[in-house]
């Protein structure tokens, strides 16, 4: 094992795939440098043809990736902030996600969209959103969301090698987070959850930055004798329901934690799924801890209030224990 941070892990995954497969190329606004440095330096090894800076034209970036994939390349297109995917929605939702189906399975689109999500750097309402639900709602897309350097490395590799459109959500606060990664660059299969902490009293399902808050909360609760299990689905679609349901069978309680605006969230879908398919194993209501139903505010104090924290998670758990 070796240590690196989440941003470096993504950088390494991209280099690994560029080296391995001549059809892979990167495109996006300022990918030559990377707005937070994630793609920095890659251009030195692979050149400006394969590490392609684009104009600020999100719809053409997304559509360019669709066309390049349809023509035989494996593009990795960066939509800098997920907030900007709003400008590219036709190409992501109506083109990338549907082309294979509409053409009767006779076209394959091996493309990856990378994009930054989440609050925490006072970037305000247009640079801080968590729009998971927008993309998990659309058949034809796969959505992955790594929470550790190891997962970032493995899932980015898997996304690029996948023959379907995959969206990789990267939490901007995680880039600097250090962790162990395997010596070999291996893909982590899309659709396999990771139990980040084993426990027996309550199941927490969390993604991205929230995984770490859940682990902190679990640590605090363990001092009070409450044993929390933390599951990171890693892939929002396809979803490893078995790992979640098996945990619920054991704990009979579930709290879902996400940074999304609560209304219409992906964890709203997950809670409906659990209610439909695992209700008999529950002995308390499914709870959701999520962002407030507001745009993400700028003020540090308000932003901190918007994002769920350990206190919110502990409170939710205690209300059903």
């Amino acid at each position, binding site marked *: 094992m070796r240590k690196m941070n989440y941003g470096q892990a993504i950088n390494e995954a991209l280099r690994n795939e560029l080296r391995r497969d001549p059809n892979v*190329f990167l*495109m996006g606004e300022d990918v030559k440098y990377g707005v937070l440095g994630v793609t920095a330096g890659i251009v030195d090894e692979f050149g400006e*043809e*394969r590490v*392609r800076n*684009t*104009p600020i*034209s999100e*719809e*053409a970036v*997304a*559509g*360019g*990736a*669709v*066309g*390049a*994939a*349809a*023509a*035989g*390349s494996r*593009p990795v297109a960066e939509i800098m902030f997920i907030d900007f995917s709003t400008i590219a929605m*036709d*190409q992501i939702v*109506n*083109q990338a996600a549907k*082309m*294979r*189906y*509409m*053409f*009767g*399975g*006779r*076209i*394959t689109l091996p493309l990856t969209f990378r994009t930054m999500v989440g609050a925490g750097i006072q970037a305000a309402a247009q640079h801080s959103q968590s729009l998971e639900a927008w993309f998990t709602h659309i*058949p*034809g897309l*796969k959505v992955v969301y790594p929470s550790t350097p190891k997962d970032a490395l493995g899932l980015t590799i898997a996304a690029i090698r996948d*023959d*379907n459109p995959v969206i990789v959500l990267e939490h901007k606060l995680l880039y600097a987070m250090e962790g162990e990664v395997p010596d070999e660059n291996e893909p982590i299969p899309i659709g396999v959850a990771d139990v980040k902490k084993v426990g027996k009293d309550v199941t927490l399902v969390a993604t991205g930055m929230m995984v770490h808050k859940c682990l902190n909360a679990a640590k605090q609760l363990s001092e009070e004798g409450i044993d929390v299990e933390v599951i990171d689905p890693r892939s929002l679609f*396809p979803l490893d329901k078995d790992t979640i349901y098996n945990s619920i069978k054991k704990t009979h309680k579930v709290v879902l934690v996400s940074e999304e605006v609560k209304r219409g969230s992906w964890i709203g879908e997950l809670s409906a799924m659990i209610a439909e398919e695992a209700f008999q194993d529950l002995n308390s209501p499914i709870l959701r801890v999520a962002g407030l139903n507001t745009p993400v505010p700028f003020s540090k104090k308000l932003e901190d209030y918007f994002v769920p924290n350990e206190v919110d998670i502990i409170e939710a758990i205690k209300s059903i224990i």
Partner: protein
Amino acid sequence: MDISKELVMDMYTKMLRIRRFEQRVAELFAAAKIGGFVHLYWGEEAVAVGVTANLSNDDLITSTHRGHGHLIAKGGETKYMMAELYGKETGYCKGKGGSMHIADATKGILGANGIVGAGLPIATGAALSIKLRGSNQVSVCFFGDGASNQGTFHESMNMAAIWKLPVVYICENNLYGEFTPQKDHQAITDISSRAEAYGFPGITVDGNDVFAVYEATNEAIKRARNGNGPTLIECKTYRVRGHFEGDPQLYRSKEEVEEWKRNDPIMRVERYISENGIVSEEKLKEIQKGIDKELDEAVEFAEKSKDPDEKMVAEDVYTDIVEEVRVR
């Protein structure tokens, strides 16, 4: 003009195949044999055929919601197209796409598209893939006057220009964006003038003259293959049918339509063939009969084909996941 007799006859045959196909589709739609939206290409045949006569199977095209003509011109087979319009499992898309979404990647057809202007970045991305691969292919993008007001038009042309991509943009200016005449949706007359803003050539040709379209495209494709970047070709033509079949067309006069019918692109080629003694009138009739027979067979093929099995609804969403679905 240096166009061989063989090429003239090939272009004529394709134009006629498109027209006859569309006539059949109009009848079948009126008879409720075909459902959904059907947007006919009737009257615009010279554009698709004049352009694609310059392309091989390896070259790529993106099409529009009015895509039958592009598909047939690029070599799409009428029986699989007809089966798709019928929603049958033998159709190009196994009955999942319909009129607006037919593709045949084996012939370089990256698909018709239900979203106006969506093909522009896709064709541009295909050209980027070609450039990265270093192959000799070109990408050709068909779109309409209405699409030239979309953001994708401007974003794509700018991108193709800075990267000198091997792409040719074919604007089919049929004078109407859905129900709105060109003068009401843009202040310019020649859409080709917009190319200047991106730093590459833009030209306007008579889109009802297949030879003019062929020659302009020939130049543009040479330019693209030689690494000199994109060209915008505006083909002025006319949509003889409504925006879709069943459109009451309250926005234009019958006189206007009749006037344009006198400028029919197929009649113009027939006149050229006869004036230049290329083939006899009997030969033309023979070609027409051959096409009609092919289309009889296509309709029969579609009618006799099976509806897709309900289980197929969940297939082809992903390459590797078929979700369990409720089948009644």
